[in-house]
């Protein structure tokens, strides 16, 4: 009796400690989840914080006198003259109007550096299009130089002003006050390809490149993946070769993506002689990479079609192929599509294999076909992130936001499809 009581006593005494342990264990779990979620939050806020300025452009509106004498130009329709003319001069003059006190050559040069390097091209293009404008005064909007843009966008942070001289900073401050330098929505970013100058670089080229690449990937991976899944689930005999195929698929799903880049380099470029850095090549490599994902999810979808459907179809005399093509595949289609969209979203974000097959080239033009050199969104982000200039860093994070929004849209579409079309049997 006494013995038992003391046992109960021992248990009761230890209870407090054990409950404390229990609470501590729970706390560990919560901390782990908090760490994971916190990283997610930090990641997103960091990228948005760095990148929202990428959606802003800084422009400078100037009254430009298209003075032929100053530009050494008397006929704007003459190509030879146009190639020799000095289109920088009118910009300097226009800027000087705001700062009449600046006269020294050195200062003037500093002043002219406030305008972006493509400003003179803008005048040239205008004159090439409308030669009759020579001699008139035009109000034109120019992109400012990248350093100015960074300075204006981060006016409250002195760390971003180091690349402007104090005099330049004063000028910019004054121009901002006068409303000459202004910020607005960065339409350049959405309408151009890459550029050496951050303020002149856009992401459209990469978006189009990604789109073309994804089309190739989808056209190859979806039908092949579905067909492979149908074969393995419905037709494959139980033998060694079928096992071998299955082992291969499972292993391919776990092969590091960069290995697919080596495959592309050695086989598609080396053996078949496909050109480098074209969407067809990128699409092919990504298709091989996505294939296991699509096959695995398609098989799961086919498996979930109840046997009663098959039996009913066979019962009224359908052949095996008819059962599969008329009943099983259509019923499994939503599941297959969901898996494929998720696989495509992965492919859209994939970078490493594309680096090896030359999709890292600096490409200004927006690709116009499956065989024109192109880059894709994640590679463009990589390229911008690896250049030191502040202007490119914000473009990289803006690009990340666009990439992520594409991926979130695709995943949302997959979830919607699953909710909408998938039947529970």
């Amino acid at each position, binding site marked *: 009796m006494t013995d038992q009581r003391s046992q109960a006593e021992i248990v009761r005494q230890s209870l407090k400690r*054990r409950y404390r*342990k*229990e609470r501590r*264990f*729970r706390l560990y*779990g*919560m*901390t*782990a*989840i908090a*760490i*994971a*979620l916190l*990283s*997610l939050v930090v*990641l997103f806020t*960091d990228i948005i914080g760095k990148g929202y300025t990428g959606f802003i452009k800084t422009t400078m509106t100037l009254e430009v006198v298209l003075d032929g004498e100053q530009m050494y130009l008397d006929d704007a329709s003459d190509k030879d003259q146009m190639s020799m003319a000095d289109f920088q001069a009118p910009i300097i003059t226009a800027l000087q109007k705001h700062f009449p006190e600046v006269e020294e050559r050195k200062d003037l040069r500093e002043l002219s550096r406030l305008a972006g390097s493509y400003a003179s091209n803008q005048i040239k293009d205008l004159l090439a299009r409308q030669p009759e404008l020579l001699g008139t005064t035009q109000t034109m909007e120019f992109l400012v130089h990248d350093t100015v843009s960074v300075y204006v966008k981060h006016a409250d942070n002195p760390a971003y002003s180091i690349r402007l001289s104090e005099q330049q900073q004063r000028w910019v401050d004054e121009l901002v006050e006068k409303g000459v330098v202004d910020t607005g929505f960065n339409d350049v970013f959405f309408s151009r390809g890459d550029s050496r100058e951050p303020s002149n670089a856009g992401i459209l080229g990469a978006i189009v490149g990604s789109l073309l690449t994804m089309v190739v990937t989808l056209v190859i991976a979806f*039908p*092949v993946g579905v*067909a*492979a899944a149908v*074969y*393995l689930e419905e*037709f494959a005999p139980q033998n060694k070769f079928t096992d071998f195929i299955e082992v*291969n698929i499972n*292993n*391919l799903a*776990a*092969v*590091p993506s*960069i*290995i697919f880049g*080596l*495959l592309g380099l*050695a*086989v598609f470029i*080396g053996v*078949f*002689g496909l050109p480098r850095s074209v969407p067809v090549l990128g699409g092919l490599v990504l298709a091989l990479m996505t*294939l296991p994902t699509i096959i695995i999810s398609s098989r799961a979808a086919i498996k979930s079609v109840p046997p009663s459907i098959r039996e009913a179809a066979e019962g009224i005399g359908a*052949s095996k*192929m008819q059962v599969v093509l008329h009943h099983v595949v259509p019923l499994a289609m939503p599941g297959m599509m969901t898996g494929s969209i998720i696989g495509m979203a*992965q492919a859209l*974000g*994939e*970078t*490493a294999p594309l*680096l*090896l097959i030359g999709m890292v080239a600096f490409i200004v033009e927006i690709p116009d076909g*499956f065989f024109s050199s192109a880059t894709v969104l*994640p*590679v463009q*982000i*990589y390229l911008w*992130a690896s250049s030191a200039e502040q202007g490119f*860093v914000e473009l990289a994070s803006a690009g*990340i936001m666009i*990439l*992520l929004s594409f*991926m979130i849209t695709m995943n949302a579409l997959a979830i919607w499809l699953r909710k909408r079309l998938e039947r529970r049997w």
Partner: protein
Amino acid sequence: MQTANLLPLILVIAVIAYGLSYMRSRAVAEPIGGIRNLKALPFYYAARAALWCAIPALIVLALWAGFEGKVIQNYVVASLPAELAPESDGQASLILSQINNVAAGKLDPQFVPPEVVGAADLLDALKQRSASFKATLVILLAVLGAAYAWTRVQPHINARENVERTLRWIFFVCAAVAVLTTVGIVFSVIFETFRFFGKVPITEFLFGTSWSPQTALRADQVGSDGAFGIIPLFTGTLLISAIALLVAVPVGLLSAVYLSEYATRPARAVIKPLLEMLAGVPTVVYGFFAALTVAPFIRDLAESIGLEASSQSALAAGLVMGVMIIPFVSSLSDDVINAVPQTLRDGSLALGATQSETMKNVIFPAALPGIMGGILLAASRAIGETMIVVMAAGLAANLTANPLDSVTTVTVQIVTLLTGDQEFDSAKTLAAFALGMMLFIVTLALNVVALKIVRKYREQYD
């Protein structure tokens, strides 16, 4: 005619073949009392015609397009006069690119020897001839196939069986693509690897402790040999992966435990997708985050407590990689924890154990093999991960265990060696393939072992 234009053309011919055969099958059915007296439905006769038309044409087209570039190139190189004939592969690629550029009009013919211009003309002519041959052959095949199938639209022939058998074959080929891919991977790395070992002895590669693949342009330059010892790369890879696993395993495992044992249903429904978002973020985004936010942060932090840290520390890359594989560990652990039979749990709880005691003493030991498998898979992920380390880890192959130092990894070196212009034959380029082969072997071994463990564990409770 371009391959891209031939594809739609074949499609059009196939559609015409389909339509004509469909009409013919109805026509032959007419006198014998309608389509019910045919062996197969008109659709199958038509589909068979379309297949007969498209498949041979497409196969020939694919083969031709795949090899014409190579064949023409070799022919053109062989046609070069003896004094221009390339002595090495490097020279050959140089001359070839000259020829290509002249042919494409990118290079002014006056800058190159006349033989090259001649070769460029030859290249152009050959390309044109090849294109017209290809178009003729493919169209001929398509039309012949369609015509043959059209004549075979006869009531006693069971077209359905033909069509179904063909489809089965097509499905089989699609499934075999996975095998072909593996074969392709193995062969693409194996050949170059053997060529690499012809230049650099395998023992030096495996046991050398110095890695500096810069082979000099001139033979008399200092350090012209280059060193290809893989040890520093392996230790670098292991260091970063170890840091990643140190983050991912505890966090992932404890999250999985909390989610499966403690979290309420609504909390689980919210937290799980959020965790999985971490897995969906592209690696280039993590790389950006590691290189531009975490690495400077760690450097400043280390400096503030008086330590010296590289701005490309292994720690930054490892931490961020750890975050990336958290959802991987947690969802795999979640699966295995949920696979432990409820009876074990109930038994332990009924004996008066608390939930955490049940977890630690009953479920965890039971789930351990599965969890180990998951960790191995995560390790293989970490080893093969590229973008984070390319962007956040350094290029210098330091043999160090200091996480604040800069290290390089196998994947970083593959990317560095293979991006930019390169000749296909130098030890530098070939080294990348040897590294790729090592990477493939290691990750494959890890995956095979991990999958075996996981499967064995599943069978235990099924």
